[in-house]
Structures are given as C-alpha cells and as structure tokens.
C-alpha cells in the first residue's frame, strides 16, 4: 500500500487506517460525528495527499488540456482554478478534476491539475495518449508533495496569520504560491466540505511540520485532524459529487445534471459530440437530494421507487451528522424530481418514505 508523508503520523495518533484506492489513509481518529462537527464549527485538518497532483511545465498545456476538459480551460486567468470533467469519446466521465493556472515563485505561469487518487494512473495514461510527445510537459508531483485540507469557519483566519500572506483576501477557487519557511507552498481557496477553507500543497519533506504547526496553533480553537469518514459525510451534506458514486465512466454528464461543469460554446474537446447527442436524446436523469423518514440511512445502489416501479437509484447515502437525519443523493426520472415530491427508497427489501429536497442539504451560514 502507498503511504502519504503523513500516514505514519495518523497511525501514531489514533487514526483507524484503511486502504483507500491503494493508499493507507485514516478513516477516522475517534468519532466521525465529532470530526464532522469540528469542521462545521471550528476547523478540521485532512490529509488528502492520496489525490493525484500533476504539473505541466510547458505553455502547450493550455491547448492540450483545452482539448480534454468539459470546462473551458483556454484563457483561464492566472490564479484561477476551474472544476471540470474529463470524458472519453463516448461521453463517459473519466474523472472530475481541478485545473489551476498559477504563478510559481520563480514567476513562471503554469497549469496544475488535481485528480482523484483512484483515477490518477488512468488520467496520466489518457494525457499521454493525447499528447504522446508530452508537449504539455506533464510531471506527476504526487509523490514529491503532500496535500492538506484545512476546512471550517476558523481555517482561513488561522492560515492567513500563520503564513503571513493575504489568504483571507483570496477569492473562492483561486490559488497562489507563497514562500513559507523557505519552501514553496501552494495555497488554494478550495475544499470538499461545504465550509470555507484552504487546501495546501507542500513538498513532502515539509508535510509533517506543516500539519503539526497548524494543529498546534489551532488546538485552543478546537482544530482537530479528521479522516475520510468525515470527509464523506461533509461532502454529502454539501451535495458535492464523488467519483465512483455520482460520477463514472458509465455516465454521460448530460444525463447527470452536470451542466455547470460543461462549456460547449465554440469549443471542441473529447466527448463533446457524445454529450450534445445525449442532451438531445432520452434517458435524462436528474441528480436529487432525498431526506428519509426515521433514522435508517439508504446507501449506494438502493432503488428509488414510485408505485412499485423503480424510478431511480441512490448513489450515496449516510446519516447526516449536522442535520441528524438520513440523507441520500440519487439519480431519478425527471418526472419525479421536483422538490417536495414523495417517493420511497427500497433499503434491502423494505420500503422507506423519502422526500425530494433542494440541494445542497447544508449550506454554510
């Protein structure tokens, strides 16, 4: 199993370690509920070093990426980050990614990309296939760096003060390199929790000291390490899609209510024709939120039912710690997708009443 620069730290500090996409990662330290609450009310630290970090050394990256992403990448302003999908020729979603255009400390203007851990090798192979001479200057920086998410209402003020850089003034989905203790640190106003916060990319050798500094400075304010369990409940309350659940190669983005991640106008990219065809075809599904009665959570693959007919499928579900009730995301027939609609969810043979609700389930105050 792969280890992040922080894996040993987690194991030594009570992390319950699991295999996640081939990486040894903490699923929780003591309680998912407590870690979840810390992120909503104070702040939590997540090791997300398992995610793939790719750097593109050449300016040609702009046109290479533009031909492979559903969002318009060409002309991205310096310092801006875009959420995008990458699709195959059939419109199947290969991954959802963040594309960064950054000024590096030496003044260079470079593209970076963060991809899901489970898709890193696939995406690298895909990039190599479409850019066989590596005009884009692709380098896999996953093993040379660590990535730490600091998320919660107290995260930005603390990181702002600690780094002595203007972090509080950064816009959502922007990033910048700062020099911290003599090393380059990439700070972005991004996250996967529905809270304000930052994600930090540091050289591997600096990961433990950075992690411990933030924890130490935030200890009195209630900062705590949080695992993948809380990361999942937080992203689900915030209705953020997760690859392998809401997104997959079997899914065309047009069938999945992912219009916000697609720019078609005056662009050509792999998968475009298949997306346009799907938009004009049948079989459109809507991504909806469901709140279930009682306390029993629906999980992935539970059928959504109406009058004895299957009208959809749950893609993710849990007991929502903030809302204190079971929630789920599902793809369903648009005829049953309006907010307030009553449906049923079949949880292992038993039907449970559920209501279609507005997404996200939780928005920060």
């Amino acid at each position, binding site marked *: 199993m792969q280890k992040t620069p922080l894996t040993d730290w987690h194991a030594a500090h009570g992390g319950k370690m699991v295999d996640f996409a081939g990486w040894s990662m903490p699923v929780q330290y*003591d309680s998912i509920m407590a870690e979840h609450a810390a992120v909503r009310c104070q702040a939590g630290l997540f090791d997300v070093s398992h995610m793939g970090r790719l750097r593109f050394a050449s300016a040609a990256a702009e046109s290479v990426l533009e031909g492979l992403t559903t969002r318009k990448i060409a002309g991205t302003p310096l310092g801006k980050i875009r959420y995008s999908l990458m699709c195959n020729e059939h419109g199947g979603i290969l991954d959802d990614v963040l594309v960064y255009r950054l000024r590096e400390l030496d003044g260079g203007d470079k593209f970076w990309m963060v991809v899901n851990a489970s898709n890193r090798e696939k995406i690298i192979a895909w990039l190599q296939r479409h850019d066989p001479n590596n005009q884009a200057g692709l380098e896999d920086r996953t093993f040379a760096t660590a990535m730490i998410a600091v998320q919660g209402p107290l995260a930005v003020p603390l990181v702002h003060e600690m780094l002595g850089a203007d972090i509080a003034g950064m816009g959502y989905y922007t990033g910048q390199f700062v020099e911290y203790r003599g090393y380059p640190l990439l700070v972005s106003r991004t996250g996967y929790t529905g809270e304000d916060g930052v994600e930090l990319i540091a050289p591997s050798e600096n990961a433990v000291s950075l992690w411990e500094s933030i924890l130490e400075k935030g200890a009195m304010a209630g900062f705590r390490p949080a695992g993948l*369990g809380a990361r999942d409940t937080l992203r689900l309350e915030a209705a953020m899609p997760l690859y392998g659940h809401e997104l997959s190669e079997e899914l065309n983005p047009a069938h999945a209510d992912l219009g916000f991640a697609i720019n078609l106008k005056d662009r050509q990219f792999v998968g475009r024709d298949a997306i346009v065809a799907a938009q004009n075809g049948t079989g459109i599904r809507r991504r909806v939120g469901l709140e279930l009665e009682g306390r029993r*959570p629906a999980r992935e693959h539970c059928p959504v039912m109406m009058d004895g007919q299957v009208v959809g499928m749950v893609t993710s579900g849990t*007991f929502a710690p903030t809302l204190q009730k079971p929630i789920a995301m599902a793809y369903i027939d648009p005829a049953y997708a309006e907010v307030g609609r009553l449906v049923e969810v079949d949880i292992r043979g038993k039907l449970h009443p559920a209501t279609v609700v507005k997404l996200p389930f939780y928005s920060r105050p």
Partner: protein
Amino acid sequence: MNAEDLKYLESHEWVSVAQQNGQQIATIGISAFAVEQLGDIVHMELPSVGDSVTAGEEFGEVESVKAVSSMYSPVNGEVVEVHSAIVDDLSVLSDDPYEKGWLLKVKVDSLSDGLLDYATYKKQCESH
C-alpha cells in the same frame, strides 16, 4: 453480565443462556469491541417477536455513520423479546453493551457450534 461469562461469535455477537420456566432463553447483544469499532451507531434493524433466527445467519443490521453491518445469530430459535426501545437511545450500546444494551431474547432450539469463550474471543480482537 460480565463480559468474561459470555460466549461470542467471531462476528462479535455475545450470547448468554439461562433457564427460565423450564426453557432455555438466550440473551443476545454485540460486544464492546464491535461497538467501539463501528463508532457513531445511528440505527439498528431488529427482528420481531415470533420471528425465527438461525445460528450463523443474519438477524439484523447495525448502521453507523460510516457503513451498515450485519449481525449474526449465535443460536437457533424463536425471538420472544426485542429491545426495540434501544433505537431511541443507542448510547446504551457503548455505555453498557452487556446489560442495558441487550438486543434480543430467543427461545433456544440449539446453539451455534461456533461459539467462543471470552479468552478466545478477546485474543481474536487483539489480533485485529
């Protein structure tokens, strides 16, 4: 009940069998180790009085925030009492798993042949 006096399944259910009115009645629950490993338990699905349970087969489910797990019966028999109120206060599972945290009482036809004594079960948990 003392943890030391109970029998266990590898899958972390405990059972205690007592004679009541000439019948063998098994009280069934899940171990402190299981409760700790599951963490943040939010719901349980339990059978109804009159249902039959089969040794080694699922009798219910325990839902934590993280995942759902099956619970397996240590005995063959018929359910005579269900601790349904536990769903409203699942904290008794961690506070008192071997007394107030009981889940089922079953009129026993026979016991599972896979029951472990405390020492063997404890050893299994430690090697986890």
